């Protein structure tokens, strides 16, 4: 992860947000990312895809990482634009994922009673170019996603 003073190349832009791990911040997080990328002139479809991926990653942190008890916990959202490439990182310091491969299988869910369908990672994968999930059991999860936007036409 980048430090407090990352070396950022010319033509790049970055932002970092910390917010309470509560469900009402899901909308805030995806709206913040949509606002951050406005200068790239994204298409409506690109905005929707990115908002969906962010929503899934942040919801996972809140529901699974902190198991819905994250009022005093934080989710970190980091975004960097380099040229037309958008890099997004969503990090929690929750319980972690014991088996990432299993968790990323479509329709797998560790909480079937919550009826979220287990489609979160499938949507992130479908809507972003690259998806990388790392976890330390007991030490949280980092979801890193990359997407190169078109020329806006």
């Amino acid at each position: 992860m980048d430090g407090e003073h990352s070396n950022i190349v010319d033509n790049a832009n970055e932002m970092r947000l910390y917010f309470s791990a509560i469900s009402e911040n899901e909308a805030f997080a995806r709206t913040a990312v949509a606002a951050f990328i406005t200068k790239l002139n994204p298409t409506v479809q690109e905005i929707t895809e990115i908002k969906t991926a962010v929503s899934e990653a942040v919801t996972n942190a809140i529901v699974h990482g902190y198991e819905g008890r994250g009022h005093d916990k934080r989710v970190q959202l980091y975004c960097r634009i380099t040229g037309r490439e958008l890099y997004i990182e969503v990090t929690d310091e929750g319980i972690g994922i014991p088996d990432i491969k299993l968790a990323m299988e479509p329709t797998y869910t560790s909480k079937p009673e919550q009826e979220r369908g287990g489609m979160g990672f499938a949507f992130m994968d479908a809507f972003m170019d690259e998806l990388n999930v790392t976890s330390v059991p007991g030490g949280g999860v980092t979801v890193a996603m990359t997407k190169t936007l078109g020329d806006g036409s």
Partner: protein
Amino acid sequence: MEIIFTQANKNLIVKPSGEIDHHSSVELRREIDRNLTRSKAKNLIFDFSAVEFMDSSGIGIMIGRYRELTQRGGKVYAININGSIKRIFGISGLSRIIPCYGSLDEALASAGGE
């Protein structure tokens, strides 16, 4: 979230407005289940014309209601799904189990007026 319910014979039509995510899905699920019980409707029709955003939480609600209603011999339909919602219907496989129609009339015709 504004949620409008209307009933046509044995069909309950639910029209949510705005964004369906994990946060808003709690209220949406509770209201749908409450209205299903109260109306004794057999089928459920989701009207997406006023939905501006939906993530996998919405898919979860639909699969949950689909399981419940099909067990009782009912059906679940979707109407007015736009481009982005159509895509997540496709990716999630929802479009294979939930018939989608362009209008309420078509869905009601398919439900057979029951």
